[in-house]
């Protein structure tokens, strides 16, 4: 079963258009949404939660159409963290726990307390005095504490230091030990996504450039550093992105398109995405 299934999803605003987004997230896996600021990641997430009206297309979450009346009860099984988490200013972490206890049927107070402790969050500090990192950690603790089957996180790790980001990624990784648990997370910290995602969906200027298995991407693409003469010899169909300078040419190649003979350097997801985004802009 797919935890999320999106088909030809469209939404247009005056100055922005999300066009024909189609991808799915198989149960038990983690998908990362990548894209520049304003690419449409948050819009996609809001459309998945039916927080904004879509223009066309379909969205199915945990087997339920998100326009159907049953979706309200499905929301119990979804833990959401948006990039701007807000709680009433005067509440403390302890208060938030008490509120959530009455909000979610499956609220697990013990787990919440354990996470608050793990994240080193103060229990008596008022929310208005929370730092960005503390805010995100509190929101993640809430999302994880009502026994969700699906986590949806929008830029949940940005603004956090590398140590706590790594801890949170570990928690996400552990969360999917259960094969009925799935995660969708968006981030522009591509290295975080590279660490834990099974699939990567790349949204660029409101369109989905690709949705692919992460390891396939890393094996398929490679970066060549060449002289201009050597570059001429590379078959054009294998070239997916080019960066030229006075000293040489850097080329992103697709290995299966016939350049196995070249000595390619191991590449990272970040490089692949930068090359592809620039290549797309040049069109």
């Amino acid at each position, binding site marked *: 079963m797919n935890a999320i299934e999106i088909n030809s999803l469209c939404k247009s605003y005056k100055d922005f258009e999300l066009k024909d987004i189609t991808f799915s997230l198989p149960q038990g*896996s983690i998908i990362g949404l990548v894209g520049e600021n304003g690419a449409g990641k948050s819009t996609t997430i809001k459309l998945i939660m039916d927080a904004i009206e879509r223009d066309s297309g379909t969205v199915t979450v945990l087997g339920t159409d998100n326009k159907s009346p049953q979706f309200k009860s499905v929301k119990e099984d979804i833990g959401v963290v948006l990039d701007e988490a807000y709680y009433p200013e005067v509440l403390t972490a302890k208060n938030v726990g008490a509120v959530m206890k009455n909000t979610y049927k499956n609220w697990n107070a013990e787990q919440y307390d354990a996470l608050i402790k793990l994240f080193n969050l103060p229990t008596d500090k008022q929310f208005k005095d929370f730092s960005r990192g503390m805010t995100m950690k509190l929101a993640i603790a809430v999302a994880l504490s009502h026994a969700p089957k699906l986590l949806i996180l929008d830029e949940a790790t940005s603004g956090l230091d590398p140590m706590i980001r790594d801890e949170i990624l570990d928690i996400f990784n552990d969360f999917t*030990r259960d094969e009925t648990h799935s995660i969708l997370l968006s981030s522009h910290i591509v290295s975080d996504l590279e660490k834990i995602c099974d699939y990567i969906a790349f949204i660029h200027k409101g369109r989905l450039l690709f949705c692919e*298995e992460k390891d396939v991407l890393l094996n398929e693409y490679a970066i060549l550093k060449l002289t201009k003469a050597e570059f001429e010899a590379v078959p054009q169909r294998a070239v997916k992105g080019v960066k030229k300078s006075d000293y040489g040419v850097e080329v992103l190649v697709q290995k299966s398109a016939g350049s196995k003979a070249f000595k390619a350097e*191991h590449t990272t997801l970040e490089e692949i995405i930068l090359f592809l985004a620039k290549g797309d802009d040049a069109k």
Partner: protein
Amino acid sequence: MEIIISNASDKPIYEQIYTQIKNRIISGELNEGDALPSIRALAKDLRISVITTKRAYDELEHDGFIYTVSAKGCYVAQKNTEIMREGQLRQIEQHMREIMSLAPACRLSDEDIIEMLRIMQQEGNER
């Protein structure tokens, strides 16, 4: 069981897992009937993708090194000498094909090649 994944390696991750488990089975470190870690547990422990881990296990199963009992897990299969022999035969054939492609350039006849093999065997026996 230790499995080392290198991100800097040229080899795809699934191949690294495949080779390391296969080598442990051939060397006898893993015996027939030994349980392997579940796909999900191994993926999460190594912090790699579940799909990739599954591909490695699928290949191991396809090549007869392990078998799956549904809802229980994966186990080391009976060592199939026939399969290993098959693999080695394939390797020999491949080397022979290389010889065949190189021989014309050196103007070696089939007899010359057979003669070379005989001489090498004799040398080997004398040693």
